């Protein structure tokens, strides 16, 4: 299993990751299709994901939250726009408020996953992320700064409390 290529297109605002897995397509699909498996790779180890709703059919919804080291929760959602298990999955991927309701003010990314048989065995996976606009990317950046600064503030509080 390896990442074989990463293609970034600044004009189209897309990033494509190609990877190869040494398992059949049906098994690789379970990385998305089984919520317990999805939980184990979606968030970083410091922020594991917990799936709340998980309906990977066309028109279905996935809701989840990631739990930070201090127990804080970051909520997110997917809207499934296309699903053809075990070959294709297209979702809109966005942020939610603390009640899990989609936050319309935050940028939405489109994630497209396709899985194909490799000649000689295994699965080729292509994951493409598409940003709605440069403004949406900019907004992500400015939010990143804001959130990062909040973290920096929490660190300062910890230092002052010591």
């Amino acid at each position, binding site marked *: *299993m*390896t*990442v074989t290529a*990463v293609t*970034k297109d*600044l004009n189209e*605002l897309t*990033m494509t*990751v190609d*990877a190869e*897995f*040494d*398992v059949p397509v049906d*098994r*690789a699909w379970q*990385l998305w299709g089984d919520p317990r*498996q999805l939980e*184990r*790779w*979606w*968030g*970083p180890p*410091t*922020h594991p994901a917990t799936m709340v709703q998980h309906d990977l059919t066309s028109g279905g919804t996935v809701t989840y939250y*990631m739990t*930070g080291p201090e127990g804080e929760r*970051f909520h997110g959602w997917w809207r499934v726009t296309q699903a053809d298990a075990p070959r294709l999955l297209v979702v809109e991927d966005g*942020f939610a408020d603390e009640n899990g309701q989609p936050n319309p003010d935050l940028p939405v990314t489109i994630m497209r996953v396709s899985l194909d048989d490799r000649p000689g065995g295994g699965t080729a996976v292509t*994951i493409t*992320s598409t940003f709605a606009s*440069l*403004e949406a*990317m*900019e*907004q*992500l*950046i*400015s939010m*990143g*700064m*804001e*959130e*990062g*600064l909040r*973290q*920096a*503030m929490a660190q300062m509080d910890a230092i002052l409390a010591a």
Partner: protein
Amino acid sequence: MINYNQMVVDQLADADVDRLFHALADATRRDIVRRVVAGEHSISDLARHYPMSMTAVQKHVAVLEGAGLVSKNRHGREQRVSGRVEALHEAQRLLDMLEQVWRDRVDRMGALLAEPTLEDPT
């Protein structure tokens, strides 16, 4: 998201962080940044969106300018505010950060697939 945040913070010097923190600690200033990143606005345009005087808006813009988040340009008698041009280059940086997020995810997928599977004994 969390990964990007940490990386963004790591790339900023402490003094910059202080200035940015102060600049972005205010909801009006965050809103101004979002507006001018999408396109240039005059101070009077901006002032229409907030229940405050033009002088107050000017002060907010000055704080943002000090933090390097916006720049002011004179057009005749009018001052216009735009998002930092360099901010556009951060699109590339965001894509770079996103690349790392997905490389880490694929690593975790690989580790998961390498585990012994619990097959149904049917």
